[in-house]
């Protein structure tokens, strides 16, 4: 707050006072009062005017400057009402009270939305668990009637259905504000094998070789989340494996600061100009569009879940030659336990 700003604010008041001073001085002059008396009166009048102004200016300047620098330093600007000093003059109090009222209203609005979002998430989670029962029973019925002609096609669709349902579940989990995972020491081998078992049918059907390198490494992660991520990546690799002698390889290596888990395939690869965008929500790319099966959600979810878990997620690819997805478990996240 600058002095000139303050004076501009008080301009009307000052001009009016000066007018009064001039008129009184004129009156005294006409009444033939001695000039010394007029000057004395004038000085007293101006002192009475200026002293309270200076005091008032100081008080306001102190409050507003403190307030503004606090606001500037604050990361969450909406917290200003909570930590600002309570002013000792009327206008400041009005500001103080108004900020508090508006803050409270905003908090209530946020609470309403986060409650609505939480309820929605709970509903989705419940729905996912409910729908698993009919899926499970359909699978069993199919298994018991494997010789009917429709069984194979239905069973494939059931796989797709299950995968989509799982995506919904993890999407709901990934957008939750609170922590919804449990980090434990987890063997990469168990996870990779579980994913291979889950995809056994399609691997065998398409004659895809499954290779594993060194996987006897333990990392700190949530086993269920990482299994989902790995399953999405392997699912992609299967989808875009379009060659003779298709092969998917999972291997891990420990380096000084991190453990790297590589999932590589020798499939069709991703065009270089699309590589940076494949993890965007809803991005399907040339490959996805040509096959009309991509939802653009798989990799987006993987990247997001990895971020939440504190893992790195990287994709390298050579168009026409293959793709490698790398999940990085930084050593530092192992000390968080």
């Amino acid at each position, binding site marked *: 707050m600058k002095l000139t700003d303050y004076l501009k604010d008080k301009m009307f008041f000052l001009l009016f006072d000066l007018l009064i001073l001039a008129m009184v001085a004129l009156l005294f002059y006409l009444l033939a009062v001695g000039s010394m008396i007029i000057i004395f009166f004038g000085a007293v009048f101006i002192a009475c005017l200026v002293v309270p102004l200076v005091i008032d200016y100081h008080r306001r300047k102190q409050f507003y400057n403190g307030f503004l620098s606090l606001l500037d330093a604050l990361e969450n600007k909406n917290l200003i009402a909570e930590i600002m000093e309570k002013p000792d003059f009327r206008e400041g109090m009005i500001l103080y009270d108004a900020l508090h009222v508006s803050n409270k209203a905003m908090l209530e609005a946020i609470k309403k939305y986060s409650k609505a979002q939480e309820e929605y998430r709970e509903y989705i989670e419940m729905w996912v*668990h*409910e729908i*698993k*029962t009919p*899926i*499970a*029973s359909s*699978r*069993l*019925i199919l*298994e*018991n009637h494997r010789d009917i002609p429709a069984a194979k096609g239905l069973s494939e669709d059931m796989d797709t259905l*299950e995968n989509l349902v799982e995506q919904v579940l993890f999407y709901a989990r990934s957008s939750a504000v609170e922590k*919804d*995972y*449990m980090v*434990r020491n987890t063997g990469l081998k168990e996870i990779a*094998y579980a994913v*291979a*078992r*889950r995809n*056994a*049918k399609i*691997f*065998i*059907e398409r*004659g895809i*070789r*499954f290779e*594993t390198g060194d996987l006897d490494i333990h990392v700190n992660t*949530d*086993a*269920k989340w990482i299994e989902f991520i790995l399953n999405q990546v392997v699912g992609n690799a299967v989808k875009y494996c379009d060659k003779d002698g298709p092969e998917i390889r999972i291997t891990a290596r420990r380096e000084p600061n991190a453990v790297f888990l590589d999932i590589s395939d020798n499939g069709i690869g991703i065009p270089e100009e699309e590589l940076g965008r494949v993890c965007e929500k809803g991005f399907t790319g040339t490959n996805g569009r040509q096959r009309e099966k991509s939802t653009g959600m798989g990799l987006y979810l993987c990247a997001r879940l990895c971020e939440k878990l504190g893992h790195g997620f990287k994709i390298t690819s050579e168009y026409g030659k293959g793709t490698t997805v790398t999940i990085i478990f930084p050593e530092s996240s192992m000390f968080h336990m």
Partner: protein
Amino acid sequence: MKICIVEDNQKIREELASFLQKYGYSVCAIADFDGDVVSAIISEKADLLLLDINLPMVDGYSICREIRKQSAMPVIIVTSRNTEMDELMSMNLGADDFITKPYNTQILLARINSVLKRAYHTVDKIDCGRFILNLSKSMVEYNGREIELTKNELRILNTLAQHAGSIVSREELMNDLWSSDMFVDENTLNVNVNRLRRKLEDAGLADVIETKRGQGYLLK
């Protein structure tokens, strides 16, 4: 071996029962959850319990806890909730294994098998007519001789023996190998089957495994 199924969904209960029966288990199911579920389970005297967690009236976890107090029967918990928390909780309550719905039936079978083996240390022997397959020692017993088998060969012969007299397709064999973490491809399967055949032949068991072109293999 008798398996007790605790599951509130009628369809799953029935289909699971007939699926397990197809694989040679005898099955009983608990369908009434109003009464004393725990004593109903105990009185069935089953060898293994397949327990669903989400049940009406009672909580599967508390059933598991009660069962553990009264019996040492192995328990596999089946649930549609698949968080790490649920899995830990099941294991802490004394369950032997944990499997999530919807389950892959091959994996379910493999889990049941391994839990049973762990719990009863049974000497698994399958009488294949001309020879005996000893699963726990991974050997074929024939004419007083013992022929050692590798993990893959044992698995292949076991699957063929379970379907003795009918053709097992190559896909089925491979699926079976994959469900026990042996991720073989077509070539490896060929090599394994041929080596198995030669081993049996060397011991005097010729033409045990017949190739049906385009269909699969048959154990005679």
